[in-house]
């Protein structure tokens, strides 16, 4: 993933701060290899190696994708969106704003995939693609809030105003996640109650390992994507700043010289 920050000034000689901008580093290349290997092994375990379940049969394999996607998108993605939003409202710096924006975008993708895999899993197991079960409803609300957040990011208003409004939407989305978590205990629905009980896991051995491995893999994959997304956003910000500086310099150059 390489972005050129040179588009605006192709003929200028590369100075000290004019290196070709890239989002990768030795750290992210290593993380990327690890994330892809873990992701591939998790898919192999989930879709091929792990055993079918007694009542669900092969449909259980979607469980190893659905839950890790939901956890990475909801807890990691929306969690970091909340951290970035609070950080921005407190410190008012671009770093926190871009952290929130990057986390929100990935959370949107992961939540969409959660809904998709859940729908595909629900058809054979529950007998329906969609049902207004409390957890499904609240996850749909989260999905809509994240789309709203994304729309806010593209709004062409003053960057500080946009960051502030985005942060408020981000916190609204963050408030939905604990509700999604508790929905299976507070209300009745088709969703099972929490499977992840560390003291008494209700999963047989190989299934438990596949589930655990898949959770860790999707989390690593998420963090790898997040680092790159954040760096792209950071470079875009710098590029916009530079373009503005150059435009101002050009206007100044056009102005008649004062004696």
């Amino acid at each position, binding site marked *: 993933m390489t972005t050129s920050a040179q588009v605006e000034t192709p003929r200028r000689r590369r100075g000290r701060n004019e290196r070709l901008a890239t989002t990768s580093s030795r750290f992210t290349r290593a993380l990327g290899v690890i994330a892809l290997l873990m992701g591939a092994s998790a898919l192999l375990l989930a879709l091929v190696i792990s055993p079918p379940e007694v009542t*669900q049969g092969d449909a259980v394999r979607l469980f190893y994708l659905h839950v890790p996607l939901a956890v990475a998108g909801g807890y990691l993605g929306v969690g970091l969106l909340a951290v970035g939003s609070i950080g921005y409202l407190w410190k008012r710096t671009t770093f926190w704003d871009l952290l929130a924006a990057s986390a929100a975008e990935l959370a949107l993708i992961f939540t969409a995939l959660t809904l998709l895999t859940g729908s595909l899993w629900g058809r054979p197991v529950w007998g329906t693609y969609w049902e*207004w079960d409390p957890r499904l409803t609240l996850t749909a609300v989260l999905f809509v809030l994240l789309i709203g957040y994304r729309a806010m990011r593209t709004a062409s208003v003053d960057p500080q105003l946009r960051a502030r409004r985005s942060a408020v939407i981000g916190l609204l989305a963050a*408030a939905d996640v604990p*509700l999604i978590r508790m929905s299976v205990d*507070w*209300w009745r629905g088709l969703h099972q109650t929490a499977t992840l009980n560390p003291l008494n896991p209700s999963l*047989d*051995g190989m299934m438990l390992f596949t589930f655990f491995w898949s959770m860790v893999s999707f989390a690593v994959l998420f963090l790898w994507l997040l680092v790159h997304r954040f760096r792209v956003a950071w470079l875009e910000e710098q590029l916009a700043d530079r373009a503005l500086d150059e435009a101002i310099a050009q206007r100044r150059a056009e102005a008649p010289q004062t004696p």
Partner: protein
Amino acid sequence: MDVTPPTQTDGVHSPDGSPAAGSLAPRVGGPVRARRWRGIVLAGVALAALGFVLFRGLGNATLYFYNADEAVAKRDTLGEDRFRLQGNVEDGEVDRTSGTARFTVSYNGADVAVEHHGELAKLFAPGVPVVLEGRWDGEVFRSERMLIKHSEVYVEQNPDRVAAYDEGDATKAAP
């Protein structure tokens, strides 16, 4: 960055009542910090209200299903209303004649006779918890839609255990 020149109105106040740039007129309204705190408090109140509405709304108005025993107790008030009923499919014959399945579901000691017209869920079997959509017809629950409420327990398919169970060695088969 604001690079546009400030628009002049009366030279003292801009249209929203605040002093124009460079004006010596006193500021209207409190300092920025106080207004920021008011915004945070308002957002907090709005969030709390949203949470409360969601909790009450989802908790009461959209009760997803009645358990079999509650549905029996409320049979008179429910009348002809459509609702969802949850219960475990009882062991015994499932009579499937001319697109109708007759079986019994039970929950918390209450049994309900069900006449189901329509597709049977793929995982439908004795012992499985089902959610049925339909209405009371006297003592019988007529349903048109069947969903499976699956449990959080996942058990590996293992031919040895099935064989052990068939031979009556339940100790090996029990998870």
